[in-house]
């Protein structure tokens, strides 16, 4: 599980992520989460982050959003379920999903600033980060945040430093209700199956595992009571994938653009060879001189 072989680097040619037995995953069981924010506290402590003391914005969300110093936040949603007439208080721990096909990595222009390990963890190398914010645009989950202090991108590392030495992430360690579990991706899927059966037995017919195929699956997965409507959970994307615009930009635009530039340069050179320089002749000079004299 602790295999941390680097398999992909941003802005470098490397093959797509291959799922395998080494894959790890964090499973967040939303139906077990009590919103205690112990994961947030553990994250702040383990990563030695110093978030600012904020203010109340009329909700229980604090900090109000992910920041360079808050890699994870709880998002609280109050939802009246029209089908049952019951209020549901949906609490989702938000943070990096560690996609198999990470949009951030795709968008990043700095070689090796974003890396993906063989176990699926997507991590930022801050020495190489240039602070352009392309990862922000690349991410289908709106996760990375650029620090105003050092102009570098920050997000959940899935505690790659802990995982490398055989530990689980700090949030999972701190979670009092085992709403956050960590293990191989297969173990987490099996655990999710059990939980989904339990939820179905409690009347949540649409309970399911959120492991979105649009990004080839993720290494942070959710058990949702309403897997048919992920967006209920504070706007969790229903069908996340790397934006077509980003795909165009990093695909067609890049290659076509370079091709045009190359063609133009080559074209100019060829033209010069074929047509030769366009010189002014002595007749031209004389004509010009004559023109002046006439005047």
């Amino acid at each position: 599980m602790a295999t941390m072989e680097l398999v992909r680097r941003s802005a470098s040619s490397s093959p797509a992520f291959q799922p395998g037995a080494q894959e790890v995953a964090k499973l967040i069981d939303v139906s077990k989460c009590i919103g205690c924010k112990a994961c947030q506290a553990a994250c702040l402590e383990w990563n030695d982050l110093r978030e600012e003391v904020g203010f109340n914005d009329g909700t229980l969300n604090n900090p109000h959003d992910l920041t360079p110093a808050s890699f994870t936040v709880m998002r609280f949603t109050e939802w009246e379920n029209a089908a049952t007439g019951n209020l549901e208080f949906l609490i989702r721990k938000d943070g990096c999903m560690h996609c198999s096909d990470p949009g951030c990595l795709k968008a990043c222009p700095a070689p090796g600033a974003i890396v993906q390990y063989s176990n699926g963890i997507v991590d930022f190398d801050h020495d190489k980060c240039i602070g352009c914010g392309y990862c922000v645009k690349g991410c289908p989950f709106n996760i990375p945040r650029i620090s105003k202090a050092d102009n570098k991108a920050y997000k959940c590392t899935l505690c790659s430093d802990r995982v490398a030495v055989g530990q689980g992430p700090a949030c999972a360690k701190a979670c009092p209700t085992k709403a956050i579990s960590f293990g191989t991706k297969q173990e987490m899927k099996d655990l999710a199956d059990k939980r989904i059966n339990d939820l179905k037995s409690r009347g949540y017919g649409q309970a399911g595992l959120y492991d979105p195929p649009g990004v080839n699956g993720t290494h942070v997965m959710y058990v949702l009571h309403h897997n048919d409507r992920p967006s209920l959970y504070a706007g969790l994307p229903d069908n996340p994938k790397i934006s077509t615009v980003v795909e165009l930009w990093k695909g067609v635009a890049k290659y076509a653009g370079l091709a045009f530039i190359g063609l133009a340069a080559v074209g100019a050179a060829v033209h010069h060879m074929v047509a030769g320089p366009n010189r002014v002749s002595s007749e031209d000079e004389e004509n010009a001189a004559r023109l002046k004299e006439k005047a």
Partner: protein
Amino acid sequence: MTNSWTDIKNTDLVLIMGGNAAEAHPCGFKWVTEAKANRGAKLIVVDPRFTRSASVADFYAPIRQGTDIAFLLGVINYCLQNGKIQKDYVANYTNASLVVKEGYSYKDGLFSGYDESKRDYDRSTWDYEIGPDGYAVTDTTLQHPRCVFNLLKEHVAQYTPEFVERICGTPKDKFLTVAKMVSETSAPDKVMTSMYALGWTQHSKGSQNIRGMAMLQLLLGNMGLAGGGMNALRGHSNIQGLTDVGLMSNLLPGYLTLPSEKETSLAPYMQTRLFKPLRPDQTSFWQNYKKFFVSFQKAMYGPAATAENDWAFDYLPKLDVTYDVLRAFDLMDQGKMTGYFCQGFNPLLSFPDRGKVTRALSKLKWLVTMDPLETETSRFWENHGKYNEVDSASIQTEVFQLPSTCFAEDEGSLTNSSRWLQWHWPGADAPGEAKSDVWIMAQLWKRLKTAYQKDGGAFPDPIVNLVWNYKNPDDPQPDEIAREVNGYVLADVPDPTDSSKMLLQKGKQVPAFAALRDDGTTACGCWIYSGSFTEAGNMMARRDNKDPGDMGAYLNWAFAWPANRRVLYNRASANLEGQPWDPSRKLIAWDGSKWAGNDIPDIAPTAKPGTVMPFIMNQEGVGKLWVRAGMRDGPFPVHYEPFESPINNPVNPKIKGNPVARVFKEDLARMAENGSKEFPYAATSYRLTEHFHYWTKHVQVNAVLQPEFFVEISEQLAAEKGIKPGGWVKVSSKRGQVEAKAVVTKRIKPLTCDGKTVHVVGIPIHWGFMGAAKKGFGPNSLTPFVGDANIETPEFKAFLVNVEPIPGPVA
């Protein structure tokens, strides 16, 4: 807790009512999620707010704060009406069949013997009919009109689902769903656990809230069973320890009681503490009271406590009245208490009617605070603008701040809700000049002793004769104290069956409280902790998490009082023949000659099943559906409205609050009338999961997670008052006002009670003017100065306020 945190995994149904375990006890709540995930257990939450506990519940029912008794008696009524009780259990293990003596009555909210002028009962009619054999009369057919069972039926008949809805605002169908789910656990192999906390205790009838549930659990046969019981979720890591060692003005360690001023010598004191069995063959364990008392006196005064001087009985203070904290502050306010020693306590924020608390502290000559933190109390004299608007120049109180270590910086034991004494070691050095509480106390005692020795004084004996046998008298070590608390042998005691052997050997630790004696040969600081530090070592420091029976017992992890027992009354987990009601959840069983199993039997090991009943602490030997004079406000709970209520009491509109709750006259004048127009909304106070009391606001991380004081209101009230989410509001009561951000939420909904719309206002407790979080207020600026009739816990959970939008502070 009668059971333990780890035992909750064994349950079939969790009822969280009067608490919010997920938010206030998230680490313990894991056992609820275990029960849900592994046993398919169901979770019900009954609360005025849709809490974070409710977010993971299978069913949620709203209730108006302060009406739990009506709800519980309604459930009891439902169970009785529908035959949903554990009949064998009720018949054998409760006092259902005992006959109450003539003269006892109940009518319109009052029991026999009420004296309005004293606000108290003459409780002499609250007793059993005693037969010629000296025992209480029983009617096992349950036909006698005055047997407890029939009195109970009659008493709860009023609490129909409709009446419950009228009082509690719980829609009838939701109430019935809860009642039905709860009643299903009357099956012998189904168990419900009750998890409650300050949502039940912080009422003027808090003790009776708990009684209500205890009665229900007895009727359902859920007491003493794995996964059952009454589980008080203690709010501090060591608050169980605080009550255990008697840090109450009327208690001695181990729930022994201080004498009253009428009990001027040992004989009359013991006369009221004989605890003779009320039924034949019953244990009535408190019959051992004198052994524990004498051993305690020996631990305190050693050679100065002798048989001749009644074991130094005269050294003990004698109570005229109860000196609870409410009274202490009242005396301060009257100028009668002029010095105050405040150890690990922040009354400026945690006691009601903050205006009165400030006024009282300002009248002191001196105040000492011992705390790891800069508490608001230690800075009560400092002006912090609107957050602490005082005129510092006019306050003459001299304040001494003694910085102390916190739990992570010292060694010792903490007693958790499960009654586990868990030893801990320092994880860090104390900062600055901080000293352990023990060191500070030793220094104080040393100086007091010197002063008394030098100057004499009216009665120096209890101070100068205090036993102080520590290696370094200036700095007693935690293990030395723990050994004293466990108890030790003062003189050899020969074995009466074999004089060549010693029963007890001088200088040894006592093995358990069973060894304690009333002849002065043993000393013991707190009898229920006996066994925690024996000759085998420090039992509290054990860390073996093996659980052979998979019952969550963990018998070799730390030490649980009493006698390392994990589930109290566990004899009741087995039927009359001694076999478990549910063989898959066996705690103990009778093997033909003795009791044994996965827990330490809560009964004499050879006590024959069918003869000795499970509730060995009770004189009856059985669980009490009806109590004799033990409760000041009645043998059964009755629904009383909070002292400040949006409606009059539907049971009897003339009764305001709990008719027996002690309330000081001036404080009564500072309360809103029922149905007040000026203060129309029903407020309640509570903790949030992000904080622990007033401590963690000093911690940057916690301050980040929940930075600013707010109040919660419904969308309907917000619309009515024009309050925007995140906008500023002023919340006022008859006693004060606070300013807060508004959290407008669907999780609070207006209730309909007695035909009136009742808006609930939620006020969390965690803000003050010291620490890392934004400055704010606490609900105690608003709450009334009145406590529970039995134990004087202040009524923080139900009071009246008004809410108005205000412009925010200019940035």
